[in-house]
């Protein structure tokens, strides 16, 4: 019991230092709200954070969490209101500013979003998230040179998350830089071995380099992680359909048949496989 009190006081002390509250019940509400939010119980979490904000109207953390929950629920206007409120209180709250940028992107206000991310970099030149989003914006425009510059910067200042490595890998693959693409896919997968988008990308990278078997093995691994991943299914269906057609043109009908049967296991409605299997009967 003594230790329990001590832990609570440590929690209280930490939160006070973080500028997120001073009343014990506010801290409890925030802690419970966080726990509920992480469990995906967003409505219940929002209730906790709302109560925290009612008790302490300038609690940035609680307001940000409310904004985050609204965004997750696609209540974007309410989310923008919360983050805007935080920024009025504290213009250097980079969490709120990052979300303002994301919401602007969501609203297709691309230039305003770009400005917001640059504002973050003025406040915090080592902000990995701002570099990441700017990198993503360039990557979406297939401006891979700029995308690589910003994503690399995100990595240099501390973003070591799989999405950054994945986006870098995609940018490099789009530029035909296979060595860097492979390295970045592998880095993404080291951090998150079941990262499906990275596995699907790596599959094509090795396949295009001539290692069809490794590509196939990678996509099959994806389907072990998620049996209904449509991208891996379509990748495998395409590859087996190509192999089957190749076998057919070489006159190897037995092999062609096998590959088309395989195609159908990944894409049961594949019209080519169905047609040729009927024809080869």
């Amino acid at each position, binding site marked *: 019991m003594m*230790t*329990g009190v001590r832990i609570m006081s440590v929690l209280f002390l930490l939160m006070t230092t973080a500028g997120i509250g001073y009343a014990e019940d506010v801290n409890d509400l925030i802690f419970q709200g966080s726990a509920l939010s992480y469990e995906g119980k967003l409505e219940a979490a929002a209730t906790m954070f709302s109560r925290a904000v009612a008790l302490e109207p300038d609690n940035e953390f609680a307001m940000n969490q409310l904004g985050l929950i609204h*965004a997750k629920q*696609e209540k974007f206007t309410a989310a923008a209101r919360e983050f805007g409120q935080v920024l009025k209180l504290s213009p250097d*709250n980079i969490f709120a500013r990052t979300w303002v940028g994301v919401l602007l992107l969501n609203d297709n206000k691309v230039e305003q979003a770009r400005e917001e991310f640059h504002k973050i970099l003025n406040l915090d030149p080592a902000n990995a998230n701002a570099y990441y989003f700017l990198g993503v914006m360039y990557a*979406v425009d297939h401006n891979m040179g700029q995308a690589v510059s910003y994503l690399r910067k995100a990595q240099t200042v501390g973003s070591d998350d799989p*999405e950054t490595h994945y986006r870098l890998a995609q940018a490099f693959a789009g530029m035909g830089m296979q060595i860097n693409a*492979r390295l970045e896919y592998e880095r993404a997968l080291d951090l998150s071995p079941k990262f499906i988008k990275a596995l699907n990308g790596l599959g094509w990278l090795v396949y295009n380099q001539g290692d069809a078997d490794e590509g196939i093995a990678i996509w099959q691994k994806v389907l072990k992680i998620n049996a*209904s991943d449509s991208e891996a299914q379509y990748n495998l269906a395409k590859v087996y359909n190509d192999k089957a057609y190749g076998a057919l043109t070489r006159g190897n009908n037995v092999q062609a048949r096998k590959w088309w049967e395989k195609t159908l296991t990944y894409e049961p409605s594949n019209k080519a496989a169905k*047609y040729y299997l009927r024809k080869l009967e």
Partner: protein
Amino acid sequence: MDWMTRRKFLTAGGLGLGAALLVPGVLLAGESAFDLALEGQDLLAAKEYARAIEVLHKAVSLDVGNEWAWGLLGRAAYQSGDMRGALTSFRKVLGLNPDDVYSRMMVDVIQQKPLPPREKHETPLTPLEQAAKKEEELFHARISEEKGMGYQVRRLVLDPGHGGFDSGAVGLGKLQEKDVTLDLAKRTAGILERQKAPFELFMTRTDDYYIPLSARTTTANQYNADLFVSFHINANANRQPNGLDTYFCSEKASSKEALRVAEFENSVIKFDKKELVQKGYVNIEDMLFRYERRRYWEAGGKIAGIVQKNMAARVSMKNRGVHSANFYVLRRAKMPSILLETGFISNPEQEALLTQDAYRENLAVSIAASLSQLAGGGV
């Protein structure tokens, strides 16, 4: 672990009981990780943060998987104002136990405000990293002048519609859509190659064989293409309609005619139920995905406008304009994509035109010119 359980766990640690049982072997050493963590916890409570950090660093170096010691180190670092160190420690806890609510919350709390840069630790490069570094240096030299804004096009996938047993639409004079689309795509590729246009070109098919719709966009994704161009010829039960159209993908059809064309082109497949997006909670990556798709559709619209304008200016067919619809063949592409309807095969006069070499060449020249216009500048 929920927040109550977390507290119970910490309480057990504070009393020096449960955690010792959880980490058998640790107590065997003279100065165990557990003893050090306990000492660190006491120093933390006594607000001797520098000493606590020192002791807790020893604890985690003895037992790198000790979640409790990492959590204490995170708190000590936080209290001493070392936000980067605190973040690293709380992230370490989450690596060991992703359900730890307290550490997750502290990561969120710390990330509200600017952090000092991460310290760099130089480590020797692996052979793959060395090769990647060389490749990247060459890349930076190559793209140093590319600072333009807007959508950039370097890799093109040309997709001749239909093929093999799927003839597509057939005219009264027996002209088949699949043959015209293949010829047009090949001519376009040939012109671009002869002009040494700065594109990497890929084709979904180079002969008369059938490619499933799913495989067409998969090919574009396979090569990380920047633009997907699908060649088609329009048809209608009525013999009168004629002219050129260019389509791009959008959520809703821009007109009833656009909807009809999309339904016809989509008719070779049944929409996959997995395509339906489940309603649920979104995260940042979902929002970025939507932004990405909107951007591609927007760029697709602009490119469609360029191609349509050039085609209509060069060939003697009615300009039916640019439309948008939800084409399956375009929707799965991870890039802007357009679909060209280069005349009506169902109209006997246009069927006759489409059989002519000179007419096809003219069309291909106008399409190639449009694509060349995209090189180097953003859309």
